[in-house]
């Protein structure tokens, strides 16, 4: 069980949260202008990093707000004070 630090509610059990996957993926402003490859890259391709990974969480059973944390995907340690 991970101990996850919600920016609003403080450290809570992982079971209060849902995982939102890789952070910083921005929906293209003009999808019609993209090639199929570029659209597939946005839609499906992931960096799936081994090591420090910026990711989204939502405090589903708490304040229900989304936030981004950085976590090491090998040790599962969150980086303190990452923005």
């Amino acid at each position, binding site marked *: *069980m*991970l101990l996850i630090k919600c920016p609003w509610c403080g450290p809570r059990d*992982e*079971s209060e949260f*849902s*995982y939102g*996957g*890789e952070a910083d993926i921005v929906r293209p402003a003009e999808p019609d202008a993209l090639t*199929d*490859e570029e659209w*597939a*890259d946005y*839609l*499906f*391709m*992931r*960096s*799936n*990093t*081994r090591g420090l*990974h910026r*990711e989204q969480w939502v405090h589903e059973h708490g304040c229900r707000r989304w936030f981004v944390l950085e*976590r090491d*995907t*090998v*040790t*599962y340690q969150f980086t303190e004070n990452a923005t």
Partner: protein
Amino acid sequence: MTRQKYSIFSLLRNAVSHNENWRQAWRSPAPRKKYDALIIGGGGHGLATAYYLAKEHGIRNVAVLEKGWIGGGNTGRNTTIVRSNYLWTEAALFYEKSLKLWEGLSRDLNYNVMFSQRGVYNMGHSLQDMRDIERRVGANRLDGIDAEVVMPARIKAAIPMIDISPGARYPILGASLQRRAGVARHDAVAWGFARAADALGVDIIQQCEVTGICRNGSRVTGVESSRGRIEADRIGVVVAGHASVLAQMAGLRLPLESHPLQAYVSEPLKPVLDTVVMSNAVHGYISQSDKGELVVGAGIDAYTGYGQRGSFHTIEHAMQAIIELFPAFSRVRMLRQWGGIVDVAPDACPIIGKTPLQGLYFNCGWGTGGFKATPGSGWAFAHTIARDRPHELNAPFGLERFTTGALIDEHGAAAVAH
């Protein structure tokens, strides 16, 4: 080199000499400078690929490079279930090919992989579950795969320990049954393929970590490894959870996310369960090993991870479901627990095929269901590498499906959620 044949006679002969003269099952050679083909990853799928490359395609100058020891990854960290009751025709035909290879595997490899066709039940707990089950069973039968719908009274007769009472937390309304499905001994699968491939000339190189993929323009030329540079024009990557890491070395991006997947076994019991029970809705599956341990599989952890361990509440969730199905198991103690890293694709189907780089092939994205595919995956991947084009059975599973949109959506459609 010739393979020492295992038989009742070799057993007797070696018993007379106090079992001191068994030949080692495979060699441990130093890597050569150059091979015709390299397989990265010495799990079941990688070893099977090397075996079928040598056996079916005559490509014997092959090395399997393994970072740790063979079969030490997900091959040795799963619940060993083998079945082919997938919904979509592309997936069903592929897994059925694999199941047919399983049926002759011990004889083919001259190694007892202990494939036991004890049947797999997929439980339905709601009206919607039963509709899905009937649809899938119908689809399986149209694809020529054995499948049947069974009702609670017959389930109870076959599995006396199960709770089918209407007041159960997860009431059992019926199940699908594939009788030809079953379990196999996971370690024996790795060792059997390793021994058979080695006998055909394949070099199995353990403790050899690939650190880079060398390329000349859009062609691959070899790998950098912890044991030096090894050249080859054809490189097959079969590394399960670490596929994205290898792809990064080649400058590629894959549609995969790696998650921890956990399983555990109980203390050994007398025989109580002679088949396999899976439940999609509650995501737990259970069988009993020949040693008597209950083997229980959980779902994946939600977060991505490479740590070969997951969270405790994931185990607890699966165990709660198992105890609701089998109240008598509530006092059984769990003995061991482990986690593997599974690479999950958006459509819960594998990726087996070519990449934008000439000579580089990827076999990944098996998610939670790779073990059952071990022989079929190796067979199809060997064909893809040898001919530089996929076999018709794995053609729908290329990387290009994420661009064309021709996904094979087995998420939730397969007999168990991925």
